[in-house]
C-alpha cells in the first residue's frame, strides 16, 4: 500500500486511515494469532491432559507416541517459526515504538499544529480515540495473549514436568515390565520345570501304577505261597513232633539196648571164664584118660602075657598027654580069663579112645568158644561204644529236633504274621493301584494343564518381550516428548517475552497515539509547525508504514504460522484423540495386562504352591516311597 508522503491533511487522513486499517488488520491478525495461540494453548492443555492421561497409562503406544513426537517436532518447528515471526514482529514493533516515540515527539508538534487544524481533526480525534481504543484493545488482547502465552508457558512447563513424569513412569513401567518379563521368563522356566516335573511325575506315577498292579499280583501270589507255607510249616511242625516222639523212644530203646549190651558183655565174660574153666577141666580129664589108657595098656599087656602063658601051658599039657589033661583045663580056664580081661581092656581102651576124642573135641570147642567169647566181648564192646555214640547222636538229634520244633513254632508264628502282612500288603497294593490310577488321571490332567500353562507362559513371555520393546520405544518417545516440551517451554517463554515486548510496544504505541492525539490537538492549535513536522511525520509514518507493512507481513506470517500452528494443533488434537483412544485401549489392555498379571501372579502363586507340592512330593516321594503318604499328598493335591 503506497503512501503519499506529501499529500497534505487529506493525505495525512488517508495515511491515518490506512494506518487505522493497518492497525485494525494488525489487531485482527493479533486476534487470530491470539485465537491460534489459545487454540494452541487448548491443544497444549489437552495435550497436557492427554499427557497426564498418558502419564497415568502404562502401555504400548509406540506408534502413537511416535506420531505425537513427529507432530510435536513439527509443532516445535512451527512454534520456532512463530517465535521467529514474533521476534520479527517484536523487532518491527520495537522499531515502530522507536519511530512512534519519535513520531510522538513529532506528533506533539503535529498536535500542536493540528490544534490549529480545523474540524476534521475532531473526527480524526474520534478516529484517534477509536484507534486508542483499538490499541487498548490490542494491548488488552496482547496482554491476554501474553497471559495465554504465559499459561502456555506454564502449561508447557507442566507438560515438561508431565512428560518427565511420563518418562519416569514409562521408565518405571519399563523397569517393571523388564522385571515382569524376567519374572515371566523365570515363570516360563518354572512352568517348563513344572511341566518336566509333571511329566516325570506322570511317568513315575505310571511306573508306580504299573509297579502297584505288579505288587498286587505278586502280593496275591505271595499270599497263596504264604498259605502253602503255612500248610507246609504246619506239616513240618507235625513231623517235628513225631520226630521228637520217635527220637525220645529211640533214646529209651538205645539206653535199654546199652544196658542189655552191658549185661551181655558181663555174661560173655562169665561165659568165657566158664569155657576156660571147662577147657581146663577137659584137659585134666584128657590127662587122666591118658593115664587110664596107659594103665589099660599095662593090663592089656598082662592079659596078653597071661594068654601067652596059658597057650604055652596048653602046649606043654598036650605034650604031657593024659597026665597033662587037668593042667590043660586050668590053662584053658586061665586063657579064657585072660581073653575076657583082654576083651574088657580093649573095650576100656576103645571107650577111653572115644573119651579122649570127645575131650579133644571139647577142648578145641572150648578154645573156639573162648576165642568166640573174646571176639564177642570185643564186638560187644565195639557195639557198646557204637551204641554210646548212637545214644549221644540220638540225644543230640533230640536236642536239635527240640530246637527245630521251637524254630518251627516261631516259624509258624512268623509265617502267620507274614501271611497277615502279605494280605495287608495285597489290600494296600490294591488301594495303591486304585489311588495311583486316580493319581495318574489327575497327573495327566495336570500335565495337560501345565502344557497349556507352558504355552500360555510362552505367549506371555513373547508379549512381555513385545511389551518391553514397545515400552522401550515409548520411553524413547516420552524422552523425545520431554525434550520437545522443554523446547516448547523455551519457545513459549520467548514467545511470552516477545508478547510482553509487544504489549510494551503497544502501550508505548498507545501512549504514542495518546501523544499523537495530544499532538494533533496541539497541532490543531499549533498549525504551522505541523506541515514541517507532518512532512517529517509523513516520512516517519512512511517508515512506520513500511515498518507496519513489514509488521503486516510478519503478522501475515504470524497468521500463516498461526494457521499452520492451528493445523498442526488440529493434527495434534487428532493425534491426541488417537492417542486418547490408544490410551483407552491401552488402559483396557493395561487393565487386561494387570488382570493377566494378577492372574499370572495368582497362577504364579498356584504354580509355586503346586511346584512346592510337586517338589516336596518329588523330594519326599522319591526316598520314602510310602504308598499311603503318596496317596494322601496326591489326594491333597487333587483336592486343591
Amino acid at each position: 500500500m503506497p503512501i503519499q508522503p506529501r499529500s497534505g491533511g487529506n493525505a495525512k487522513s488517508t495515511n491515518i486511515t490506512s494506518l487505522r486499517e493497518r492497525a485494525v488488520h494488525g489487531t485482527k491478525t493479533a486476534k487470530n494469532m491470539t485465537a491460534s495461540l489459545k487454540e494452541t494453548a487448548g491443544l497444549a492443555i489437552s495435550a497436557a491432559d492427554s499427557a497426564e492421561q498418558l502419564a497415568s497409562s502404562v502401555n504400548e503406544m509406540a506408534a502413537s507416541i511416535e506420531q505425537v513426537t513427529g507432530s510435536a517436532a513439527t509443532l516445535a518447528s512451527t512454534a520456532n517459526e512463530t517465535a521467529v515471526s514474533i521476534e520479527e514482529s517484536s523487532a518491527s514493533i520495537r522499531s515502530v515504538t522507536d519511530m512512534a516515540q519519535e513520531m510522538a515527539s513529532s506528533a506533539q508538534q503535529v498536535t500542536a499544529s493540528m490544534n490549529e487544524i480545523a474540524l476534521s481533526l475532531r473526527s480524526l480525534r474520534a478516529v484517534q480515540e477509536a484507534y486508542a481504543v483499538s490499541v487498548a484493545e490490542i494491548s488488552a488482547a496482547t496482554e491476554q495473549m501474553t497471559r495465554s502465552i504465559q499459561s502456555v508457558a506454564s502449561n508447557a512447563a507442566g507438560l515438561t514436568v508431565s512428560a518427565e513424569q511420563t518418562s519416569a513412569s514409562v521408565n518405571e513401567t519399563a523397569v517393571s515390565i523388564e522385571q515382569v518379563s524376567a519374572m515371566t521368563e523365570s515363570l516360563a522356566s518354572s512352568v517348563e520345570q513344572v511341566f518336566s516335573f509333571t511329566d516325570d511325575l506322570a511317568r513315575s506315577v505310571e511306573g508306580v501304577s504299573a509297579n502297584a498292579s505288579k505288587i498286587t499280583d505278586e502280593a496275591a501270589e505271595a499270599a497263596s505261597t504264604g498259605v502253602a507255607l503255612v500248610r507246609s510249616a504246619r506239616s513240618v511242625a507235625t513231623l517235628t513232633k513225631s520226630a521228637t516222639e520217635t527220637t525220645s523212644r529211640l533214646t529209651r530203646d538205645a539206653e535199654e539196648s546199652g544196658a542189655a549190651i552191658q549185661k551181655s558183655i558181663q555174661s560173655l565174660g562169665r561165659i568165657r571164664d566158664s569155657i576156660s574153666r571147662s577147657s581146663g577141666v577137659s584137659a585134666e580129664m584128657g590127662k587122666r584118660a591118658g593115664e587110664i589108657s596107659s594103665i589099660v595098656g599095662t593090663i592089656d599087656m598082662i592079659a596078653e602075657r597071661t594068654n601067652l602063658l596059658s597057650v604055652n601051658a596048653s602046649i606043654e599039657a598036650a605034650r604031657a598027654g593024659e597026665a597033662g589033661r587037668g593042667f590043660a583045663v586050668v590053662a584053658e580056664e586061665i586063657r579064657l580069663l585072660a581073653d575076657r580081661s583082654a576083651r574088657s581092656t580093649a573095650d576100656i581102651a576103645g571107650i577111653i579112645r572115644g573119651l579122649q576124642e570127645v575131650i579133644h573135641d571139647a577142648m578145641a570147642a572150648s578154645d573156639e568158644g573162648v576165642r568166640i567169647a573174646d571176639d564177642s566181648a570185643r564186638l560187644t564192646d565195639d557195639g557198646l561204644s557204637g551204641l554210646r555214640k548212637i545214644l549221644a547222636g540220638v540225644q543230640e538229634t533230640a536236642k536239635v529236633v527240640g530246637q527245630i520244633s521251637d524254630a518251627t513254632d516261631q516259624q509258624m508264628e512268623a509265617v502267620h504274621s507274614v501271611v497277615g502282612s502279605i494280605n495287608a500288603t495285597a489290600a494296600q497294593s490294591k488301594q495303591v493301584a486304585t489311588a495311583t490310577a486316580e493319581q495318574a488321571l489327575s497327573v495327566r490332567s495336570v500335565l495337560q494343564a501345565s502344557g497349556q500353562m507352558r504355552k500360555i507362559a510362552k505367549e506371555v513371555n513373547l508379549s512381555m518381550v513385545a511389551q518391553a520393546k514397545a515400552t522401550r520405544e515409548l520411553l524413547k518417545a516420552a524422552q523425545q516428548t520431554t525434550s520437545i516440551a522443554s523446547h516448547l517451554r523455551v519457545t513459549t517463554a520467548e514467545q511470552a517475552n516477545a508478547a510482553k515486548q509487544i504489549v510494551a510496544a503497544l502501550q508505548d504505541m498507545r501512549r504514542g497515539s495518546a501523544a499523537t492525539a495530544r499532538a494533533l490537538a496541539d497541532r490543531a492549535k499549533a498549525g504551522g509547525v505541523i506541515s514541517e513536522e507532518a512532512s517529517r511525520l509523513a516520512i516517519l509514518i512512511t517508515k512506520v508504514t513500511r515498518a507496519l507493512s513489514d509488521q503486516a507481513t510478519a503478522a501475515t506470517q504470524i497468521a500463516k504460522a498461526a494457521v499452520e500452528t492451528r493445523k498442526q494443533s488440529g493434527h495434534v488434537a487428532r493425534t491426541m484423540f488417537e492417542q486418547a483412544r490408544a490410551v483407552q485401549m491401552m488402559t483396557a489392555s493395561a487393565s487386561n495386562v494387570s488382570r493377566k498379571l494378577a492372574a499370572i501372579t495368582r497362577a504364579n502363586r498356584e504354580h509355586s504352591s503346586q511346584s512346592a507340592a510337586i517338589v516336596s512330593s518329588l523330594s519326599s516321594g522319591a526316598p520314602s516311597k510310602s504308598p499311603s503318604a503318596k496317596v494322601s499328598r496326591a489326594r491333597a493335591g487333587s483336592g486343591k
Partner: protein
Amino acid sequence: MSAPGQSECFVLFEVSGNTWAVRSQLLQSVEMPGPVTPVPNTLPFVEGITFARGQVIPRINLRLRFGFPGIPVDLQSRTIVVRSGNRTAGMLVDSARETVFIPLDSIQPRDEADPAGSPDSSLKYREGTAVLGSRTVLILNLEEVIEGI
C-alpha cells in the same frame, strides 16, 4: 597017624584074617616077638634072626610067605617057634591066642576041601581044613612053610 575018634591039640593063629591051625606037637613054644636082626642074602619072607629061649633061630613073616602085605608088630603079634626035624624056626603071625583039640576025622584033606580046585598061592601051605562050630580053620602044612630056608 592016630585012631578014629581021636583028637589032636592044635594051636590056632591068624594071618591076614584067616585062622590057621598048627599041631601043638610041632611047636616048641609061643613067644612075644623080640628084636630081629636082618641077615643078608636070605629069602624075602625071612626077616632075620632072633632069640627064642636062648637059641638063635630064623624068623619067617607068614604074611609075606603067604603073599600078603606085612604089617607092623603089635601087642597081639606072636612068634610061633616050631621044630621040623632038626630045624627050629620062628613064624611071625598076626596073633595066636588059643589051643583047640580037633577031631582028626573032621579034618578034610586039601583036595577034597578045595571045591574050586583052583590054584591058590597059599594053597600049598594048607594041609587041609577043619570046621569048628561056625569057624573054618586051615590046617598048616609046616613042611611046605619052612621049605627052602
